[in-house]
């Protein structure tokens, strides 16, 4: 919404809001409104208003008892892109095994809180343009895994960024929503011709022990349909990579 009324002429309010955010970060999860007020040195009513504002915008969350506060998921998005992991030899070998067995491109993607990074691209059958996948989360299969995992994909990838890459790309919010619903339901993502006209891909998630999405095994092939026949193999590889990445 654009009617928030912040004009850039209220530096005091912005400073106070950031101070509140900082206080919650330092005090740790569960800090109460009163404690935040004391830490920041603001009047109670002002503190409560700022806290509620930050909770409304989801930079903070209220703990289940409604008394305490913790940093929200959105704060993670402030710190930038996906981490660049050093892959262990075991992980590379696992990918190499799958590459040897299949005649499609096999790639490893890792996820940050709101971004993805192509960590290991198949040297024989490379991705044509990894940056396309990293920027246009709505089009590629790996990006859709990330978006389907969000409570609200619009926060990570606003509808204004639904760029048309090919005639097939889902560029209307409801089209993307339908595809993400499908992805969330079956647990893997696929697309055909939405990034490049003649490339289809399939992504299976790698999840940590707590269910958090950490990466994906991505299969690509120059064809009209996603390589669904390799789904079991990709899943096996993702399961084998889980202890090596998460």
């Amino acid at each position, binding site marked *: 919404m654009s009617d928030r009324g912040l004009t850039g002429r209220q530096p005091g309010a912005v400073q106070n809001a950031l101070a509140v955010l900082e206080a919650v970060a330092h005090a740790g999860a569960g800090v109460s409104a009163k404690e935040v007020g004391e830490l920041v040195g603001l009047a109670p009513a002002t503190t409560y208003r700022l806290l509620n504002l930050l*909770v409304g915008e989801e930079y903070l*969350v209220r703990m289940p008892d409604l008394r305490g506060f913790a940093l929200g998921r959105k704060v993670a998005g402030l710190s930038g892109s996906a981490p660049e992991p050093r892959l262990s030899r075991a992980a590379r070998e696992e990918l190499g095994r799958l590459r040897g067995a299949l005649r499609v491109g096999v790639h490893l993607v890792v996820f940050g809180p709101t971004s993805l990074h192509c960590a290991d691209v198949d040297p024989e059958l490379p991705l044509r343009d990894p940056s396309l996948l990293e920027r246009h989360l709505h089009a590629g299969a790996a990006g859709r895994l990330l978006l389907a995992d969000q409570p609200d994909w619009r926060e990570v990838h606003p509808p204004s960024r639904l760029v048309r890459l090919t005639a097939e790309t889902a560029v209307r919010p409801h089209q993307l929503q339908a595809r993400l619903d499908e992805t969330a339901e079956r647990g893997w993502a696929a697309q055909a011709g939405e990034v490049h006209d003649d490339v289809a891909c399939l992504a299976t998630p790698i999840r940590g022990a707590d269910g958090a999405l950490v990466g994906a095994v991505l299969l690509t092939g120059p064809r009209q349909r996603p390589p669904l026949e390799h789904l079991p193999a990709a899943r096996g590889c993702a399961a084998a990579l889980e202890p090596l990445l998460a």
Partner: protein
Amino acid sequence: MEGLRRRRLGFLEVLAQSVAVLAPTAALVTVPALVVSAGGSLAVPALAAAALLVVLVAWCVRHAARRMAAVGGVYSYCARGLGPVPGVVCGWALVVAYGALAVSSCTGAALYAVALLGRGHHPAAVALGVVVVAAGVGLVTARGVQLSARLVLALEAVSLTLVLVLLGALALRGGTPAGAGPTGAVLVDAVPSPGGAALALLLAVTAFVGFESSSVLGVESRRPLLYVPRAVLWTPVVGGVVLLVGAAAQVVLLRDAPLDVLLSGAPLDGIVRAEAGGPLPALLDAAAAAAFVACTGGSVTALVRVVFSMGREGVLPRSLGVVRERTGTPVRALLVTLPVIALVPAAALLAGAAPRAVLSGAVTVAAFGSLLAYALVSASAPVLLHRIGELTPPALVGGAVASAACAALLVVAAVAGPWAGGQSLALVFAALMVPGLLRVAWLRRHHPERLARAGVYDEPTRRSVLRAGP
């Protein structure tokens, strides 16, 4: 609250829910004339006072809505503030209120649709219309919350535009009294008795019933802690302005109109039919029908979610908490409540009740339920704030004043209501509250653990809290 379609609705769709149930158009067509007959020259001040009271209640509801998101809406806020027993009483009062509002508005929709089709006010035709409207609303509601929210938004926008155009056209024409005889000025300029003024205030409050209903979309809206409080506060503010402007225009028109038009129960219809030929009467019928359909949709949405929430908690039978997987609709709660909403007014109409009597009777019952719920939730807001250590003096004073005013109005209306049917409808409301109260007593004795679950809200999930480390 697993199963509902989470985080789908934008701000406009959340706002539409509250606006539709408040139904400014439907209120504009029915309420000001009733307030004028009761309050005479104090009609417009009574509407302004009612708007102020409701905005104060909305301000109290907002405190809770900024802190928790729940499917039960005001019921859940109240249960978390005052505790499970007052909470469930509040929830049942809302169930009665939303149910009665749905009954009233689908009768209104049928009444105006039948008039639009030129079938007069034949009770059997209206009864058939009620069943058709309820079935249609049920089908749309079952298809998912997003579709129904958008439909309600479109209907409300169309009807509000139509009615404002109509009032503007009438005001430009200037009212010319049709025929001789006493004019409405006798009533419009009368100084009311204190009882009459209290009654006018109560009738004026009925125009605002339902402003809080967007709180039931806590789980389904995209930014619940932002959108819901905003919608809850702005709906009565904007609705109040529209209503005051519309009422002021009607007062001018009614002063010149024949007295029997004012006493007919639907004076605006009377004025339009007497003075304006051409398309204006049909325009009024279409606008009112659209508004009442939107109001039915909104009331059913709210009713179903409160019942669903109670089913999930075990306060009502658990089967009511079943969700249809494909659409995310609480379909069992819908299937249980919708037949009651359709068949009660249809049976009353076929038994010979006048359509307008059903409409106004049901809306009065809804007002009783809402006032009880408002009194409880206004009192609960300061308690909730105190419990979480965020109470401020204005919140305490506001909650106390709003709660006391709503309770006083409820008692005055129930005990001293001089208007026809007022006291008997208070008895109807009391009778409808009995099953809820019996259920609370039974739960307290046999299943206190289920009662303690009343008012579950959406807790932050693992995904919404920042993970430690990459």
